[in-house]
């Protein structure tokens, strides 16, 4: 069970999505949530989101900090930090000030980490051939 950050700071989750629960849609939490079940859609909170080892998240997440021990498919945006623990499986992009990856975690996606990561989002892909052509 997730009850501490990697730094040892205790974390409280007023809401817990149980192991047999499945939510679909857009969810907003004021303080924080721990996901032991499954969520599909979009999740946002100012606090912490933790995905437990058996938890599945197929959603775009916007949160203060995100801790992943389970499976996540979707983009993660965190104001503070993203922690991927050793059992974490993530497919999606990460945008955060800090990233902590434990050895053993699997992750595929674009990574934008640093204090300026959220101020300057990644530029959209450009057509290099069109750029190289002389303008009329």
């Amino acid at each position, binding site marked *: 069970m997730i009850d501490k950050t990697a730094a040892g700071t205790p974390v409280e989750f007023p809401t817990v999505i149980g192991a047999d629960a499945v939510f679909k849609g857009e969810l907003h939490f004021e303080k924080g949530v721990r996901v032991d079940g499954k969520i599909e859609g979009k999740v946002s909170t100012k606090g912490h989101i933790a995905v437990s080892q058996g938890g599945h998240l197929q959603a775009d997440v916007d949160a203060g900090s995100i801790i992943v021990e389970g499976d996540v498919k979707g983009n993660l945006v965190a104001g503070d930090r993203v922690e991927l623990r050793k059992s974490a499986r993530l497919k999606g992009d990460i945008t955060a000030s*800090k990233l*902590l*990856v*434990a*050895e053993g975690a*699997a*992750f*595929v996606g674009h*990574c934008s*980490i640093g204090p300026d990561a959220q101020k300057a989002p990644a530029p959209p892909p450009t057509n290099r051939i069109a750029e190289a052509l002389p303008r009329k």
Partner: protein
Amino acid sequence: MVVEQQRQTPATREVVCTHCERKIEIPATAMSVSCRHCHRRVIIEDLEIKTYHAVLRIATAGKVEVQKKGTLVADVRVNELTVEGSVKGNVIALDRVAVGKKGAIEGNVSCRTLAVEPGAKLNGHYRVDPAFVPPPATPREHADDEIA
């Protein structure tokens, strides 16, 4: 009295060929060898980048450590990479990439395990998979000027 001469067997270690990804046993002190599977030259040397270092590519079956004041501009194919300074280029690590709190990587990274300390700056596409099998080296990477 018979004096037995004890033969000291040279210490060996096992590395992974940067071309064919197969394990080869080499003398512990070797700097470069020929892979006995693919017969290509494999550089084993461990590298420490202490200042600005810009080359086309670095390929070694050893470790590369980019220190605090080091900047490495290159495509990197290594066994293990430790970044305390900055790296600009694509990274393929057969084993592990570790980024310290003041480290920065700008480029795509593929590796088996990734360890990132808070404060590190990362920008690029990441593929971190404990079962990651690196793609075969491109023909240009077979050139002997891999370490400049």
